C-alpha cells in the first residue's frame, strides 16, 4: 500500500494552490466496496494547468469532483486523505490551507464558484433549460459578488435592493420594484447585472453578449454553451478551475477553440486549472504538467515534456503508443492488451501488473509507491524502485526495455 511519507507542505518557492494527499474515495456497492480513488496524491501549483489523464472509470472525475465535495454520500464516502487548498490570501500571507474534505457546508458553499469553479463535460446538460443565460450567469454574482452588484450607489443602496442583489428578496417584494421609489433603483441594479453578466460573457469571446444573455440554452450551439459555462466559472476569478473533459462533447474544430480559450483565460486570470481528459494528445496541448491515472491511482506524474519524451510507466508508454499518428499504416491501431482490473476490494499488487508485459512476480505481490514530493517526475512502478528498499534481489524487479518507443 502507498504510505504517505510527505511532510505537510510548507511554504515553497512555487506556491501551491491545492495539494491532494492520499485521497481515498470509496463507493458502497452491492458487490462490495469500490475503491474508486485509492491513495491519490498530487499538487497543483499556482498558475499552472495540470492535466489529469486516464481512461473511463479510473477515478479522475471522482477525484476532481471531490474538490467541491460533489460526490453523493452515500453511496460514496471519503475514506481518507485530505485536499488542502490555499486561497489567494492564504498564499500571499503564508496562511494555513483549508482541508476541502472537512470544511463546513457553508464554507464549502462560499468556495464553490468563488474560489473553485468547475466546468462540465456536456454543456448541453450543464445549463438549466428553463432559465435564460442571464439568469444562470447572474446566479454566481448573487452568491458571491453581491457587493459588486451594488457598486455605484452613492450613499449605499436601499435595503430592499441589497437583499435583491444577494437573492434574499421577500416573496412579493418584486412588486415594490415596479413602482417608485424603488423602481429606479431596481432598474439600476438590472443594468448593473446586465453589465457584469455581459462582461463575463464577452470575456469568453462571445460575439453578442446582450443577445446571448437573453437566450435560452436550447437556442445556443454546443460551443456557445460551453463558453457560457466558462464565463460563469471564471466570473468570480476563482483560484482553481476544474475542467472535467470540457471538450469531449464538442466537435473537433470547436474543441481547439475552447481549449485555446481556457488557456488564454487561465493566463489572464492567473487561475490554476485541473484539466481532466481521457485524451493524452489533447492534454499535451494545454497542460504544463500531466498526471496519468490508472485504476484509482496515479501511475505517473511529471512535466508535460517529461511525460512525452521520457514516459516511464508501462501504462503511460502504452497510452502514448496508442495515439494514432500519420506514421501508422491504415488499420494499425495500437492498444493495451487486457482490461482494467476490478476496483472492488482490490488486491495489494501493482494495479497494472495484469496488463503489463514487463511484470514480474514482485509486481503481483507489492504495490509500488509513488514518490510524492511536489513537482518531481514520479512514477509508481517497481522498475524504478530500489531493490534494497523493497528487500529483494535486483533481478526480481521488472526491467523495462527502454527502446519500446
Amino acid at each position, binding site marked *: 500500500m502507498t504510505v504517505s511519507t510527505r511532510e505537510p507542505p510548507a511554504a515553497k518557492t512555487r506556491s501551491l494552490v491545492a495539494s491532494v494527499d492520499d485521497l481515498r474515495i470509496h463507493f458502497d456497492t452491492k458487490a462490495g466496496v469500490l475503491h474508486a480513488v485509492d491513495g491519490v496524491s498530487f499538487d497543483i501549483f499556482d498558475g499552472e494547468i495540470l492535466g489529469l489523464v486516464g481512461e473511463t472509470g479510473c477515478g479522475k472525475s471522482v477525484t476532481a469532483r471531490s474538490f*467541491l465535495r*460533489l460526490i453523493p454520500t452515500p453511496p460514496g464516502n471519503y475514506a481518507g486523505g485530505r485536499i488542502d487548498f490555499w486561497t489567494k490570501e492564504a498564499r500571499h500571507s503564508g496562511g494555513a490551507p483549508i482541508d476541502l474534505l472537512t470544511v463546513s457546508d457553508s464554507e464549502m*458553499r*462560499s*468556495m*464553490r*464558484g*468563488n474560489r473553485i*469553479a*468547475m466546468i*462540465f*463535460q*456536456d454543456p448541453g*446538460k*450543464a*445549463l*438549466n*433549460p*428553463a*432559465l*435564460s443565460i442571464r*439568469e444562470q450567469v*447572474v*446566479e*454566481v454574482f*448573487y*452568491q*458571491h459578488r453581491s457587493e459588486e452588484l451594488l457598486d455605484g450607489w452613492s450613499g449605499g443602496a436601499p435595503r430592499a435592493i441589497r437583499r*435583491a442583489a*444577494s*437573492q*434574499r*428578496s*421577500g*416573496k412579493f*417584494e*418584486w412588486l415594490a*420594484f*415596479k413602482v417608485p421609489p424603488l423602481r429606479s433603483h*431596481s432598474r439600476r*441594479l*438590472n443594468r448593473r*447585472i446586465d453589465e457584469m453578466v455581459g462582461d463575463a460573457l464577452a470575456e469568453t469571446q462571445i460575439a453578442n453578449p446582450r443577445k446571448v444573455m*437573453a437566450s*435560452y440554452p436550447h437556442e445556443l450551439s454546443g460551443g456557445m454553451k460551453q463558453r457560457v*459555462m466558462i464565463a*460563469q*466559472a471564471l466570473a468570480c476569478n476563482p483560484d482553481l478551475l476544474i475542467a472535467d473533459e470540457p471538450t469531449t462533447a464538442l466537435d473537433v474544430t470547436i474543441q481547439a477553440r475552447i481549449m485555446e480559450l481556457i488557456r488564454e483565460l487561465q493566463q489572464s486570470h492567473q487561475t490554476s486549472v485541473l484539466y481532466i481528459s481521457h485524451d493524452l494528445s489533447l492534454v499535451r496541448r494545454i497542460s504544463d504538467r500531466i498526471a496519468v491515472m490508472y485504476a484509482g491511482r496515479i501511475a505517473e506524474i511529471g512535466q508535460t515534456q517529461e511525460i512525452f519524451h521520457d514516459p516511464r510507466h508501462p501504462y503511460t508508454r502504452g497510452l502514448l503508443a496508442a495515439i494514432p499518428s500519420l506514421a501508422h499504416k491504415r488499420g494499425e491501431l495500437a492498444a493495451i492488451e487486457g482490461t482494467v482490473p476490478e476496483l472492488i476490494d482490490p488486491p495489494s499488487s501493482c494495479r497494472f501488473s495484469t496488463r503489463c508485459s514487463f511484470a514480474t512476480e514482485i509486481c503481483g505481490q507489492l504495490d509500488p509507491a509513488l514518490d510524492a514530493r511536489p513537482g518531481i517526475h514520479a512514477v509508481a512502478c517497481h522498475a524504478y524502485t530500489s531493490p534494497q528498499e523493497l528487500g529483494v534481489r535486483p533481478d526480481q524487479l521488472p526491467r523495462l526495455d527502454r527502446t519500446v518507443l
Partner: protein
Amino acid sequence: MVDTEHRQRSPFFTSRALAIRARRFGEVARDVLRNPTTTLGLVIIVTLIGLALLAPILTEPNVPDAYQMPRDWGALNLPPGSPDHLLGTTSTGGDVLYGVLWGARTSLQMSVIVVGITMVVGTMMGSIAGFIGGKVDEIIMRFVDVLLAIPELIFALAIAAVLGPSFANIIFALTVVFWVKYARIIRGQIIHVKNNEYVDSARVIGDSQFNIYLKDVLPNSVTPVIVQATLDMGNIVLVGATLSFIGLAEAGLAEWGVLVSEGQAGISAGRWWASTIPGAMVFLWALAFNLFGDGLRDVLDPRTEGR
C-alpha cells in the same frame, strides 16, 4: 434541505423573464391549437366553464340555496321543449336545465378544489421524497404505495361513506385519493432531474439546496404534473358524479350524478331526459379534459410524439 436565508429568488426573475415566458406560452398554445381534437376539447371546456359561470344569469337561482334543485310541483315529468322547462323536468319537478347549469358549477368547484389541493399536496410530498431521498423517501413512498394499492373509486367511496353523505365529504374523499398520483409523478421526475448536470453546476457555483430545488429541479419537473392535473379535472368529476349517483351527496343537490340517479327510475317509462342529459354532461366534461390533456401532453412531452 431548507435554507431560509436564500430561499427567495430575485425580483428580476419574475418581472423580466415574464415577457419571454409569455412568448413561450404563446408558442405552446399555438402548438396545442394546431391539433383539431385538442382544440375541440378546449372549446368544450370553455363552453362548459362558461355555462358554469353564467348559471346565475341563465337561470333564476333557487332562493334559499342556489345549489339545491328548485322544485316545480306543478310540472312533473315534462319532456324537453316545454316552454318553462327547456330540457324538461324530473319526476319530482326539478328543472333539468337548472340542474345541468348549476351542476356544471358544482363540477367546476369540485374539480378545481380537488385538483388544486391534490396538486399542491402531492407535489410537496413527492418533492420532499424525491429531493431528500433516503429514509424520508422510503417512508413517504411506502405510504403512497399503500394508498395506490386501493382502487380509486372504492377508496373514495369508503371514505365518503364513513363521513356521511355530503358534497364536502365527497371533495374531501377525492382529495385523499387523488394526491398520491402527483406525489409519485413528481418524485420520479425529480429523481430524474436532480441527477442532471445543471443541478451539479448550480451546486458548483455555491447555490443553496432550496434554491436549486426551486430554480433548477422543480421547473424542469412540473410538466407531467400539469398534464395529469388537466386529465384529473375530468376524472374527478367522473368519480365525483359516481359517488353522488350512489347517494353520497346531499339529496336534491344540483349535481349531475345526483340528477342521473333521480331520473334513472323514469328511463324504463320512456322519460329518458332526466338522467340522460346530465349523464351526457358528465361524459362531455370528462371527454373534453381528456382530449385537451392528451393534446397538451403531446406538446409538452416530446417523448410521446408520433401519434
